[in-house]
């Protein structure tokens, strides 16, 4: 199966490991993720006022690019991109007047016909079936205990979420299918502080402390998530957390696609662990999920 894929701004930088591992593990499942040509940044957060169309232009422009390929689906990895693209898609589907205005404004593009569906990669995996994913596993993640973390935009608001907004199970189902153990973390839906990481890093550190400490205290070895902004706030901001809370113990953050790539036993360079703030490699070696003799990318 070939499907257009929308990376979004941060998968080319801090989310590099997310993208690499996703493309490689999708290939194992016979899914070819083809980067959407000429994609534009979705704007990251959806505009929440009724009278603002300007900020819906970028998401709709991307959907037009999909339409121009004569495709009907667009897959995202980043939860934020997913939510923003889907919200704008829903807006124009439900409001022909607004769609007309936007089509007229973007007169250089073809008119958007609302025939594109926005999907999160996790939804695609659910469609394929976790049993089928299980069949491809070469190295089950035995002995690894994980704390799934959804954050906000993957599940809320519920019209734009991929799972139940209060009791989602999709990440649990995937991680279990990959052979890992899962803990219950009541903070799995709590916000990581999102864009406040720019102007209120202390607030982000407070929120991160709760999420990560609960996971650590409940026996989790790492957190698993699907958003590069959550990843930055919960991984890179551990430096600030440590500064604010001296008792804090670091814990690695992993993208769900990195877990898949690990379980599918793909090359280490497909995993993208080299840009993590808290290095997950020692943990994975301890659990014998990475072999010691392999040279690390950062040591090259």
């Amino acid at each position, binding site marked *: 199966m070939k499907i257009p894929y929308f990376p979004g701004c941060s998968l080319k930088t*801090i989310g590099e490991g997310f993208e690499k591992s996703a493309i490689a593990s999708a290939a194992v499942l016979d899914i070819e993720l083809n980067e959407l040509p000429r994609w534009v940044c979705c704007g990251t*957060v959806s505009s929440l006022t009724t009278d*603002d169309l300007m*900020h819906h232009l970028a998401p709709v422009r991307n959907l037009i690019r999909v339409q121009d390929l004569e495709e009907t689906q667009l897959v995202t990895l980043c939860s934020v991109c997913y939510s923003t693209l889907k919200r704008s898609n829903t807006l124009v589907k439900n409001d022909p007047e607004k769609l007309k205005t936007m089509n007229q404004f973007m007169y250089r593009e073809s008119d958007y016909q609302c025939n594109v569906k926005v999907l999160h990669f996790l939804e695609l995996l659910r469609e394929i079936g976790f049993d089928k994913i299980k069949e491809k596993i070469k190295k089950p993640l035995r002995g690894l205990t994980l704390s799934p973390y959804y954050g906000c935009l993957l599940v809320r*608001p519920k019209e734009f979420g991929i799972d139940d907004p209060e009791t989602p199970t999709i990440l649990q189902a995937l991680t279990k299918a990959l052979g890992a153990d899962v803990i219950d973390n009541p903070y799995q*839906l709590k916000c990581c502080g*999102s*864009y406040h990481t720019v102007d209120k890093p202390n607030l982000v550190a407070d929120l991160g402390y709760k999420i990560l400490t609960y996971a650590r205290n409940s026996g989790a070895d790492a957190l698993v998530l699907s958003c590069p*902004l959550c990843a930055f706030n919960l991984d890179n901001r551990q430096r600030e957390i440590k500064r604010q809370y001296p008792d804090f113990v670091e814990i690695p953050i992993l993208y769900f696609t990195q877990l898949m790539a690990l379980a599918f036993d793909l090359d280490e360079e497909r995993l993208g662990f080299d840009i993590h703030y808290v290095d997950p490699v020692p943990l994975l070696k301890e659990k014998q999920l990475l072999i010691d003799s392999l040279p690390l990318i950062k040591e090259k």
Partner: protein
Amino acid sequence: MSKTLKLDSEDAKKFAAKIQERSGEPIDMCFQCGECSSACPVSPEMDLMPSTLVRFTQLGLKDELINAKTIWVCASCFHCVARCPKGIDVAKVAEALRQELLRKKLDYVEVRDLSMEERQEIPQIAIISNLRKFSR
């Protein structure tokens, strides 16, 4: 300290109607159950609880609302709307209130004020979303 609030003034009604329209939320449906405030993960940082924000919006208390810290603390995480029995999205109300200032050229965050270290460390996704929320 007590303060006398002027209710039922024409200006207050107009402001309430404006925020209701701009947010697209049925603000008048709120009956102050407080679910949003208890769900909000950042409410400890707020001066007005999310439920109070909605109540004040019903009353059109413009000065109290646009000077509230709350509108700049909201992280648009949508915990409030997930819990609201009336389905009111308080994040949308906060955005409509922020826009009241941003559209008058009052930026909350100025991108040029970020230090070079911050620019090097913080990823695009954070800077872009922050500017979308906090600058005009």
